[in-house]
């Protein structure tokens, strides 16, 4: 990459100027938290917060490379099916060959699925939406094939999903580590800055010497690995591989990322935004359950929240553009 220092500084400046983008969502999250604290005696409880973040961890792990992909103008719809296959592989291998073999198999699988998606998008040149739509359908079939449509019981592998070193659930720690790595990668590395450049203008990025295909390929591999890890965590939490587990995960991931301010067209988004978006969804889901809100109304509220948050953000953008 032959990007000049001034370009890099400008990109960093843009990133800094984007920071306030998450402020409205953060404000909304604080309001939600206050509301649920006042209305439910169970909300402000350490165990409840553990529940919220454990539930978010699986989606969160996938959201981190998902944000990178979206900033680069791509999307990975296969993450849900991929996580399901990962769980089924883990269930099979752990039961037959032990935990180490199971984790190795999942790692290899995650790499493979990332390479396949990355290959079709960057080498063959198929649109990422179409590629991953195809792999999503294929992998769902594979998940059903592995267990012949049945779930697979798994023994002695609860630790990944349920262990609590120092009282903090392991899935939360894993998510935290990956999120920090994601924040650093996006804000402090050439790789992260290149993602913004690719998403903003792929041709210009190529002209200035950014190896777009290589960077997108690597990001797909990271996405494959994260979905495999998410499947392993879920499988461990449930002590079972379920071919239907994580169905719809891709939509949850996209919702969190978009809610966090990323643009579906690429070039815009932050890791902090995604984390706050994800937390907002988690808090809302949890709070509505604690308040015994009927399930149909929960769905209405979740949809409305997404529309409101995105509309608010769009309005703020428009006002900012007028001021400029």
């Amino acid at each position, binding site marked *: 990459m032959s990007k000049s220092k001034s370009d890099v500084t400008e990109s960093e400046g843009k990133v800094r100027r984007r920071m306030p983008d998450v402020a409205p969502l953060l404000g909304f999250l604080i309001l939600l938290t206050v509301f649920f604290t006042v209305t439910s005696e*169970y909300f402000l*409880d350490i*165990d*409840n917060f553990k*529940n919220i973040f454990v*539930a978010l961890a*699986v989606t969160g792990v996938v959201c981190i490379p998902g944000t990178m992909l979206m900033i680069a103008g791509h999307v990975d719809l296969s993450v849900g099916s991929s996580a399901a296959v990962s769980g089924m592989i883990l269930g099979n291998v752990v039961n037959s060959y032990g935990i180490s073999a199971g984790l190795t198999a999942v790692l290899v699988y995650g790499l493979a699925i990332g390479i396949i998606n990355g290959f079709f998008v960057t080498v063959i040149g198929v649109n990422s939406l179409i590629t991953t739509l195809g792999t999503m359908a294929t992998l769902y079939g594979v998940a*059903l094939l592995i267990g*012949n*449509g*049945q*779930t*697979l*019981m798994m023994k002695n592998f*609860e630790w990944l*999903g*349920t262990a609590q070193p120092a009282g903090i659930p392991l899935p939360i720690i894993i998510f935290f580590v990956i999120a920090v790595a994601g924040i650093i990668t996006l804000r402090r590395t050439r790789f992260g800055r290149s993602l913004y450049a690719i998403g903003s203008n792929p041709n210009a990025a190529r002209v200035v010497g950014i190896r777009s295909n290589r960077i997108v390929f690597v990001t797909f591999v990271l996405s494959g690995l994260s979905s495999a890890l998410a499947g392993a965590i*879920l499988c461990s*939490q*449930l*002590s*079972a591989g*379920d071919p*239907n*587990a994580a*169905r719809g995960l891709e939509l949850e991931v996209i919702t969190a990322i978009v809610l966090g301010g990323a643009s579906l067209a690429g070039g815009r988004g932050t890791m902090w935004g995604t984390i706050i978006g994800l937390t907002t969804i988690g808090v809302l889901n*949890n709070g509505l*359950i*604690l308040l*015994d809100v*009927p*399930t*149909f109304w*929960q769905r209405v509220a979740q949809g409305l929240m997404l529309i409101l948050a995105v509309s608010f953000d769009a309005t703020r953008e428009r006002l900012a553009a007028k001021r400029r």
Partner: protein
Amino acid sequence: MKRTGSKSVRVLAAVAAIVSLFALQTVPATAGGVDFRKAVKNSGKGITIGLIGLDDAIGFGKDVHDSIAREAKKAGAKLIFCDGKLKADLALACAKTFKLKKVKGYASFNAVADAAPAICKAGPQVPVIAIDIEQDPCQSAFMGADNANAGATTGKALGNYFKKNFNCEYDAFISLEDYGVGIANELRMGGYRSGFASVCGAIPADKLKKYDAGRLDKALEVMPAALTTLPNAKKIIVVAINDQGIQGAFSAAKQVGREKDIFAGSQGAEKSVWCDIKTNPNWIGATAYFPERYGEIVVPYLIDLIKGKRVPFQLKVKHVAINGANIEKYFGKISC
């Protein structure tokens, strides 16, 4: 979590289930099970119970939820509902919420039986009634459908119809199955075959056609092709894992002008098909599951368990074969 029903009770229940299969030979309309009990007013006063729902977006799950809510209210118990939405991870989160809210007992309609150990562990250590799907190791009682008997009930009704009208002669036996639901599929669909065989003898292999098409959309997709392979057949038996499969089968048959050629049996007898059953003479029977009355078993028995009373482990519904002639007896006046 200890099971309240003793091992001997469960063994007896298993024996009773087997016996009831044979009893179908002489008692075709209903299968063994417990009677519905209306909740006693104020019997649950001061008690908080939980329900992990199947999925409120599914008619069956919503009916079960509504009936439990109705009976809990009648009993004066506070019900905390949490929708599992067919996903084990959500059911797991529900169990954690129940622990937080200190429920005294809960009913679980978690759809993924293999995840039940993790869910049981995460939830409060209180009495649990499993609904339709085993929730080992914490289930104190199992309430719900007796899938094999349910299949056999309508299978037998179909056999009787064919014996009476066609001397047990038929061209094909089409089975619209759903392999995704595992053992329940085998029990229900196998039940049809054993029930039918008990009247008309075993189904020859060349007449039995199985398709993974239990859902409405899949049945609609598969049935035209299936009927094409039976061009001159006028006596085709079609059974499906639920009502929607048969709805799809009749819609598909109508598309190709063959709706008079099929004679159907289904399971569920859900409200959405009551008019079809009442008005379509070729819809021979549908096994009623009475989801709208599940609460009349779950709530009173869960309150009994919370109060430390002994409850049988098996709390299965008494299934009934519904047809055009008896439907209003069970569901009241139906306007179509």
